[in-house]
């Protein structure tokens, strides 16, 4: 049935190994997915069903009321909007800066290039907490505390390493002769970049953009540090607060958890192959 790497005549040993393999695989996948499924179930349960012992595996009275509660809360809707805004703007900024930086890194020879690339990579390993104190001071002096601009700037800076690495790797794989042909026809470097390179590297740009979006959507430390007013909170900051106000409304907490993750889950499922490839390019080519 399944192709096996081991070649050997003893079918019994192979079959036992296959059984063990599928058992391991099942346990692993269950361990990964079951918690999510359970919370999804909680989010669809009535309050009474949540408190029932033993807890039912399938909600006996499935309901969307928890989701109505969640979306009925203005602070939650606001937080979703803020997250879209912050993650969207972060994606835009870091893609723009990333494309501009990746092109010379991929194509032009200059001194200090290796150092620059290493510097970008080092940022991926940077303990972000090390900078919150001085940034807090900086933003305070610049009047940027509690603004979207502050959070977008910080998020973009920390999304840049991945963007730059993916795009540089991608640009390097493009054939040079198209660019050269465009140049012979008199196109400027900027024209070459926007007219030739970008259309060709759309898949790489999309991958980088999605990864940045996911990163910014999930970010918490900076948002929790630099944003004070509830009006500005993204979901990651609003959700723990939401959980505190709806302390005993477990169904609503479950519904909120699912709602916040759903957009990202959709992205992950649709672009699975690309995201994995992008993550690996970012991580392994270092």
């Amino acid at each position: 049935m399944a192709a096996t790497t081991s070649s050997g005549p003893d079918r019994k040993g192979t079959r036992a190994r296959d059984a063990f393999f599928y058992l391991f695989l099942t346990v692993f996948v269950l361990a990964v997915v079951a918690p999510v499924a359970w919370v999804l179930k909680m989010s669809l349960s009535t309050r009474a069903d949540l408190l029932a012992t033993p807890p039912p595996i399938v909600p006996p009275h499935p309901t969307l009321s928890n989701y109505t509660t969640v979306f009925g809360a203005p602070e939650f809707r606001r937080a979703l909007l803020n997250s879209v805004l912050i993650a969207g703007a972060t994606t835009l900024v870091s893609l723009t800066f990333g494309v501009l930086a990746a092109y010379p890194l991929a194509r032009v020879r200059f001194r200090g290039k290796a150092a620059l690339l290493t510097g970008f990579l080092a940022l991926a390993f940077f303990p972000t907490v090390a900078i919150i104190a001085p940034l807090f001071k900086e933003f305070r002096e610049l009047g940027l505390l509690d603004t979207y601009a502050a959070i977008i700037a910080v998020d973009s800076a920390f999304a840049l390493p991945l963007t730059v690495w993916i795009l540089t790797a991608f640009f390097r794989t493009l054939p040079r002769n198209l660019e050269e042909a465009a140049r012979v026809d008199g196109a400027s470097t900027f024209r070459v970049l926007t007219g030739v390179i970008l259309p060709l590297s759309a898949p790489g740009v999309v991958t980088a953009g999605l990864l940045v979006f996911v990163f910014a959507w999930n970010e918490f430390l900076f948002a929790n540090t630099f944003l004070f007013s509830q009006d500005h909170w993204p979901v990651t900051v609003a959700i723990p607060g939401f959980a505190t106000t709806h302390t005993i409304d477990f169904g609503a907490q479950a519904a909120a958890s699912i709602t916040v993750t759903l957009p990202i889950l959709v992205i992950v499922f649709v672009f699975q192959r690309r995201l994995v490839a992008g993550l690996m390019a970012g991580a392994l080519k270092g």
Partner: protein
Amino acid sequence: MTLRASRLAGRTVPVTGGRSRPRGSADAEGRLAVAMLSPAVLLVGAVALVPVLYTLYLSFHDASVAETGPYNGLANYRALLDDPDFITASANTAVFTAVSVVLEFGIGLAAALALHRRFRARGLVRSAVLVPWAFPVVVSALMWRLMLQDQVGIVPYLARQIGFGDSSLLSDQHSLMIASIGVDVWKTTPFVTLLLLAGLQTIPEELNEAALVDGAGPLVRLWRITLPMLKPAILVALLFRTLEAWSVYDLFWVMSDRQLESLSTYVYRTVRISELAFAKGTAAAVLVFLSSIVIALIYMRTLRSDPGEQD
């Protein structure tokens, strides 16, 4: 005509390197490269580089959020080491990092070796494995709090079924630590798995076959071929996970409702919430930064430099 020829000569031959090119256009190209790189470099400099240096500066001063006081040498660092909260935070962070990284790497490697086989529904499994990665840490902490909760949680319920008493999982430090490690393992092991899986796929199949012909058993092949060839992926996975665990923040913050302290939550509390401890907090931030560099260097040395498989 001449214009085109000069463009061709000047701009489009980075393959041959800078030396042979006409001087003027090489400069033009260099200027253009600088111009294109500057937004990214400026942003990163302003948001990461300058603040780090500034933290270092502040850590030697009697600083507050509002103003920078006089130079006070190592006083902030001394105050830090006298603070029992900081000691607890460091110990918690060390335990969390050690245990979770070992578990994540062990399970991740086993899973990667299993998933390396070809089987049906492999794409589906790979998607499933990415699910925890998609969850924001804060949300996975909240989600697990729900499952660990006394009244409606499935975990205490199952624990009671097996005969573990009515201990409240979210109230004492020890079980909170165990729970946090558990959530971290759930959330990040799949990522380690994917990373190692990608590494495995770069190992040429012939190597394994040759060893098989030579009569090497599975363990010998794992130890002599797979692991050494996997070193770059292992380095990245371990480095990533260790440094991330070392700066754990959101997980502890939400999971324990602020009861469990890590180095990062300590820094956050001192510089952001109790502004009186700002100076101490900057010293703590410097220590987090330096210790991260030390961790990175140790990994680079042990995993990158030794060439053979001597043990």
